[in-house]
């Protein structure tokens, strides 16, 4: 298929979209902020000698900036994990949740919440770290298990791995359901928050691990762009082209586990970003991973920021969970793609 836009134009547009999303995310809220105030507050936050109203600077530094950075990193990471999984499974409809890492991470978080509640509540200073860590561990554990089950004679059998992922995701889902059934009211509300995802309550403490993982993905994944292209031809074809596909698959699995685990730990389960963004970018730019990887990063960040803005304004002053917004946007879009794809085939 011919790409819809030239590579350069597409990246310019994606850059503009991201700037727009950043601006909206920083300026929309109960306290309206014009561009000048916003820029002054940002500069002051970064330590530059500029004066901003104290209230504005406080809001930007303590509430909106961490939230925006969280959306930026989580959106980019989820989209990149989508690219990695769709490449690994050679299926444009594959989703990072498929190999069970989302469910595993959510189960890890849920276990920590319930454990904390049974111990009389986690210490507030420690709880974001403990929750992040257990979500992260849960995601990695499930992924490692799926990977092990899918490995035969030193090679990863993708079909087995996929089925094992589906089974383990269902198992993790059932265990989360059980925890929800047993939980008291307050714990239930926290669990629900985790399951639907939200950027609310973002803090720098929650942000750092995710930013680190985002940097790791941005560093490693583009190196495999050509290998991912070859992998789409088929595993043996890629091997005949000299790609070390066992290493490639190991790295894809590890990076996805890290990425989705860190994203779920930081802001809960947010669906459809990893599915929608690479799909859209393929329509825009074609399937070549050399463009697809950076484009998905930019578009994923923009999409999540815009979804978060919607989550904040739709029922203001209350807030929707962002997972609800992405699912409301994503599911119909996805069905449309399926129907359109079937009409073509």
């Amino acid at each position, binding site marked *: 298929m011919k790409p819809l836009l030239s590579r350069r134009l597409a990246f310019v547009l994606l850059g503009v979209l991201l700037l727009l999303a950043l601006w909206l995310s920083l300026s929309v809220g109960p306290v309206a902020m014009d561009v000048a105030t916003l820029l002054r507050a940002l500069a002051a936050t970064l330590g530059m000698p500029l004066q901003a109203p104290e209230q504005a600077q406080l809001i930007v530094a303590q509430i909106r900036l961490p939230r925006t950075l969280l959306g930026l990193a989580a959106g980019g990471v989820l989209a990149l994990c989508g690219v990695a999984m769709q490449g690994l499974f050679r299926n444009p409809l594959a989703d990072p949740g498929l190999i069970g890492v989302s469910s595993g991470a959510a189960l890890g978080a849920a276990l920590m919440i319930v454990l904390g509640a049974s111990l009389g509540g986690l210490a507030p200073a420690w709880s974001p770290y403990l929750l992040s860590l257990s979500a992260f561990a849960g995601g990695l554990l499930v992924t490692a298990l799926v990977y092990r089950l899918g490995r035969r004679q030193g090679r990863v059998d993708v079909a087995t791995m996929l089925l094992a992922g589906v089974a383990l995701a269902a198992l993790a889902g059932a265990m989360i359901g059980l925890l929800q059934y047993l939980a008291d009211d307050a714990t239930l509300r926290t669990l629900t928050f985790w399951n639907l995802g939200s950027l609310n309550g973002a803090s720098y403490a929650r942000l750092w691990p995710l930013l680190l993982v985002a940097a790791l993905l941005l560093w490693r994944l583009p190196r495999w762009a050509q290998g991912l292209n070859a992998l789409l*031809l*088929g595993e043996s*074809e890629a091997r*005949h*082209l*000299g790609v070390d596909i066992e290493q490639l698959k190991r790295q894809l699995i590890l990076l996805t586990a890290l990425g989705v685990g860190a994203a779920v730990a930081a802001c809960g389960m947010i669906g459809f970003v990893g599915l929608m963004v690479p799909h859209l970018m393929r329509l825009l730019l*074609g399937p070549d991973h050399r463009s697809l990887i950076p484009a998905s990063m930019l578009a994923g960040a923009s999409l999540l920021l815009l979804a978060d803005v919607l989550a904040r304004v739709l029922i203001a002053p209350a807030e929707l969970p962002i997972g609800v917004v992405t699912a409301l946007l994503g599911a119909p879009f996805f069905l449309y793609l399926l129907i359109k794809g079937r009409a073509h085939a």
Partner: protein
Amino acid sequence: MLECQHLALARGGQRIIEDLSLSLRDGEVLAVLGPNGAGKSTLLAALCGELAPLGGSVQLAGRALSAWPASERAQRLAVLPQQSSLSFAFSVDEVVGMGRLPHASGQQRDAAIVHEALQAADAAHLRGRNYLELSGGERQRVHLARVLAQLWPGAAGQVLLLDEPTSMLDPLHQHVTLNAVRRFSAAGAAVMVILHDLNLAARFADRILLLHQGRAQALGTPHEVLTEANVLQVFELPVILSQHPELGCPWVIPR
């Protein structure tokens, strides 16, 4: 040059190839014939390192196949599988361009090679088309161009393995494809091609390996291998053996 000695192969515990020795010589086209299940594809899998042999050895240019670093091996050995499962909307040029992955020959050179390889496979008119919109035969030619581009322009010491490259092609393109393969081998590469059509093999191969229940029934020139007795024993098909009126190669006519 690719060589195997006393090769024994099994799939899923079942012995498929027994004690097969074979050498693919520079600049020659070797056709592999045999009924379904004779072990043709299994042999090809072992020759390209996909399948580890139970016994015996496979050597590429005098060095064990498994001892080659992946990308160096890919510069010498290219494989065209029977079917490809690409389901992403790459353009034809991009698919053929993937054949250049093992090389660092630069964008301009790669683009020129992609064009030449597409021309060799009689697929130059497909440039810029979406791969997914092509017919089965067109896709097959695009993949042929891809493996040709991988070894382009072809040299002694290189090996090209083709698994039924003509299975989806019309008669004209069966001949176009095998002519292209012959021209390519003339530059020095050794080519092994699995075929089902005895007459295509008789016409385009320098040598023929006839496989029967995992063993080499015959290995030699088309005249030596394609005899009424051999064809009857291996394919259980009674035939009359004649000669091509213009080219003189064997011409197999089922009774």
